[in-house]
């Protein structure tokens, strides 16, 4: 589903964030991406979501070289991907419902369908009674679960998470990771960047270790 072929990403300052990175991810896989901060995890995710483009090499998603994708096709590409962030990136002035509905509104779904799916997503993360709350009224763990509900509501083929448990205590982290595993079980490809090694051990799955922009172990 995703293929990195000798990908190098050099930022303007001349630093190589990724150097000659190659790997394949099959559809339905659960991958952990780990390494020290600055090892290139975030850059790798940014290349998949087209926040950045590769300097050399090819990034293929479903056989298409997205490094060449014209600017106006980026939105359609991103709509196939669900994203979870360390700082959850929920909109403070919107209700939980509106936050989760956002990807579906963007993808132009009918109001009725949005309502049904948002409720299902809330149900999935176990927060069905928080629809009308604003993010500030929720705990950190709950906020992150809303972030996950938003990431899965439009049923993406690929889910990307960047340090999703970075701000959570171990018990909450485990809850989040279990959510991810359940989601992976229904066939969604998952790419999770984390340095929570304990969690990776508990969950199992393929592990890609980055160090100084290169793959150290796969």
């Amino acid at each position, binding site marked *: 589903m995703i293929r990195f072929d000798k990908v190098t990403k050099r930022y303007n300052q001349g630093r190589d964030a990724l150097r000659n990175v190659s790997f394949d991810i099959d559809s339905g896989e659960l991958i952990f991406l780990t390494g020290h901060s600055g090892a290139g995890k*975030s850059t790798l*995710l*940014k290349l998949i*979501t087209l*926040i950045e483009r590769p300097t050399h090499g090819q990034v293929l998603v479903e056989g298409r070289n997205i490094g060449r994708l014209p600017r*106006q096709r*980026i*939105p*359609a*590409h*991103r*709509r*196939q*991907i669900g*994203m979870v*962030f360390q700082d959850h*990136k929920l*909109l*403070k002035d*919107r209700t939980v419902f509106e936050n989760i509905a*956002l*990807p579906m*509104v*963007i*993808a*132009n*779904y*009918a*109001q009725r369908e949005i309502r049904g799916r948002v409720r299902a997503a809330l149900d999935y993360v176990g927060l069905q009674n928080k629809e009308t709350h604003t993010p500030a009224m929720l705990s950190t763990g709950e906020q992150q679960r809303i972030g996950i509900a*938003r990431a899965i509501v*439009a049923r993406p083929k690929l889910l990307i998470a*960047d340090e999703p448990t970075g701000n959570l205590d171990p018990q909450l982290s485990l809850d989040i990771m279990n959510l991810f595993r359940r989601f992976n079980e229904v066939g969604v490809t998952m790419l999770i960047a984390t340095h929570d090694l304990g969690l990776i051990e508990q969950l199992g799955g393929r592990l890609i270790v980055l160090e100084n922009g290169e793959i150290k172990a796969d």
Partner: protein
Amino acid sequence: MVKLRRTEELTELRMLRTVNNYLIRHAQNCLGALGNMVRKPIASMLTITVIGIALALPSALSIIVRNGQALAGGLEDLRDFSVYTKPGVSLGQAEDLRTRIDNETVVRSTQFISASEALEEFRDDEELSDLVRALTDNPLPHTIVVRPTLDAQPATLKALKNLLVQHPLVDLVKLDTEWVQRFSAILDFARRAVWVATILLGGAVIIIIGNTIRLDIENRRAEIEVSKLFGASDGFVRRPFLYTGFWYGLFGGILASLLLVLSMWLLNGPVERLIRLYGGGFEPFGIDGRTLLTIFSIGLLVGLSGAWLAVARHLAAIQPRV
């Protein structure tokens, strides 16, 4: 075959639904932009007031100029005229004539310029003084400037003029058009000034709306970033701001119309007195449907262009950072 038709129907249905969703989304954006403005009533009102005044000002000037033009047209028959005597008419004969004209009921006043006074005037003129000095005798006629009464009927004035033209002492009766020409030159200037004011104030409104929307974009940065991360197209992100510009333009137009109606009402008394003084014959222009339509269109145009400018300049700069 049946199955194929069914697929076609389904595709059609899906397309209809997509269009429908799209329209609903537009309606939501449109009302949402209005809601955002209502949530900041003071800031929105201030912006709308500035736009309203900026739109009303050139419109008011334009109405005044149009009235001035109509007024100038209505004054065609109410002008002063000059009576020139034939050469060789003596000062005494000319003064007798002046007294006779003065006694006419339609004449309010006369001014007598004798031939020698006229020559004096020429002598004072820098360019003509040499020429005048070379003359041995005075070739100039006596002149009587006739100012008709304000309520003089055009027909009676015409009769008087005809009478004077046939008078044996009179060489020429000439309309004194100078001040009318000056007046229409002033009107021409004013019309140009209205254009300049319209362009400048229109530019100001575009900048005001652009800046308001720039601040709006800044305030909603997080929302724009997240929307782009989840695959929002440029159009999706742009739409709410364009609707905001639309509303500002519309409300600015409405306020401008109200201001115009109010100021025309305040001017009504003096204008009517002015018309009475000039003996009527002239209908003042107020605000008609075309004027209102123009104000609304200009309002919407500047609203949308201001929004578009802000959006074009500032939205592209907001890219998701993770």
